[in-house]
């Protein structure tokens, strides 16, 4: 039965303290971002913002046409969970919109605060860092918005703008750096990946009495399987399921120790890293000369 979640009353600032840890220099270096927040962060961010506005119609259009009808307000899981008004999708987008208005629109330049325009300053940045990381890009707001305004696009843009100035979170940057080092989010080194596969082979032999292989880096296999790395580490039943399925279907397959991650944390950071993580799938597929890629998360 469908039971709608109760909509909380507004609790101003309820989740302002739930702020992510800032990124570490060692990770920022690996993923090609400024080591720490740059000196002229404001100018850098505004420059990046101008670039983003010219590259993504979604961002410009969605900042322009929102009528603040509030249809999205009670749809965001982060708002339903915290009651913090800044977690309403429209209010989250307003964090970016007020800066956009101040620097990029006539109405904002002329009317200023009366037209919700606001300077980009330390306080606004703190809000950005807090609330743009309290969005999971689920896009539920876009389903209910009469114009399809997708707050995920706004969030992605804001994170990209912050990343350009060296502002990012430890969790996301660490994970992306791990992908570049080990090929996966969990940081499973190639030998460990292979070892886990051997272990699962033995397990399967014990349970089913059949020799079922978990090929790793097998050149010329038909299919490259790119699973979430947790399947090799924690959700091993899923990994066993893949092997059984391929065995039953009689399809040759392999995993790659260069790219064994179906998830892409670049989405939470910026376009360049998003692409770099995705490119690994193509690179691995070419290296191993497979015909198809099975990829999921």
């Amino acid at each position, binding site marked *: 039965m469908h039971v709608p979640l109760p909509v909380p009353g507004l609790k101003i600032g309820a989740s302002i303290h739930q702020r992510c840890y800032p990124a570490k220099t060692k990770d920022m270096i690996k993923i090609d971002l400024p080591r720490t927040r740059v000196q002229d962060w404001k100018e850098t961010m505004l420059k990046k913002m101008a670039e983003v506005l010219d590259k993504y119609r979604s961002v410009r259009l969605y900042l322009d046409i929102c009528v603040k009808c509030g249809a999205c307000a009670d749809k965001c899981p982060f708002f339903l969970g915290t009651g913090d008004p800044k977690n309403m999708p429209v209010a989250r987008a307003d964090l970016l919109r007020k800066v956009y208005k101040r620097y990029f629109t006539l109405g904002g330049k002329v009317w200023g605060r009366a037209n919700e325009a606001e300077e980009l300053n330390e306080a606004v940045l703190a809000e950005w860092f807090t609330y743009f990381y309290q969005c999971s890009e689920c896009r539920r707001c876009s389903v209910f918005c*009469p114009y399809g305004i997708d707050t995920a696009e706004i969030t992605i843009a804001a994170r990209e703008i912050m990343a350009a100035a060296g502002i990012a979170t430890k969790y996301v940057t660490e994970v992306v750096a791990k992908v570049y080092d080990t090929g996966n989010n969990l940081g499973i080194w190639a030998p460990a990946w292979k070892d886990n596969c051997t272990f699962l082979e033995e397990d399967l032999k014990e349970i089913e009495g059949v020799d079922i292989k978990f090929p790793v880096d097998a050149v010329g296999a038909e299919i490259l399987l790119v699973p979430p790395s947790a399947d090799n580490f924690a959700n091993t039943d899923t990994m066993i399921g893949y092997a059984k399925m391929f065995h039953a279907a009689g399809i040759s397959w392999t995993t790659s120790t260069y790219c064994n991650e179906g998830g892409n944390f670049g989405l939470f950071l910026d376009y360049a890293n998003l692409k770099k993580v995705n490119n690994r799938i193509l690179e691995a597929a070419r290296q191993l000369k497979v015909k198809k890629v099975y990829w999921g998360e």
Partner: protein
Amino acid sequence: MGMKFLFIFLPYLSFGIFLGGVLYRFWRWARTPVPLRIVTTPAPKTRLGVAWRIAGDVLWFPSLFKGDKPLWVAGLLFHLFLWLVLLRHLRYFLYPVPGWVAAVQTPGLYAGYLIPLPLIFLFARRLLAERILYISILGDYFALFLLLTLTINGILLEAFFRAYIVDVKALILGLVHFQPIVPDVHWLFTLHFLLAMVLLIYFPFGKLMHSGGIFLSPARNQRANFEQSFTNPWDYPVAYNRENLFPPEKYAQDLAESEGGK
């Protein structure tokens, strides 16, 4: 002098701002690329399906129906009434009046009497609903206030202080044919006329542009043709910062060691 400004200069100025502003906004959106496929699913697979989807978004607001029923009713009624009222006003611009404009006069009249109701609901909602009050800005109140004044003013003109229709039509047709005149009309009509000019001038700058933006919204006007490749017009090559990563030789060495141990 003041009347000349109001009835001759201002109409052309405001229409120019309206037209130029709307075209500029469209041009700005249209020339900004759409780098990724971000359509909200479930989405149509064909262009015809997209046309139908957008038609729905423009005419009967299915997303709002899913999300907020009272707002859907009020929004739908307001927009329906607004269309009828606007169509009714065409009779001042056209001579001779075509049959279909004549046919829309009575529905337009009732729509005009009723249009303040959804507007008042939308206004009250902004003030009374906690969440909506929080997100509302001056522009939201201004647009509602403007429309409300304009429509109540129109009702007063229709019901109590009727403007002499021949003068009104002479004024509008004069403007349309670039032979403007200054009419002798009731001050309520002058106010109505002025408010309409303000609306025209405000239109391209604020949120009223949602009416055009919906057609270009990537989450709605894209197709779910995921089997076809999608090209990002500004895509660029990316490279790793390799010297900072775990060295590949060390990687190969680790692997060899693990296999040697077996």
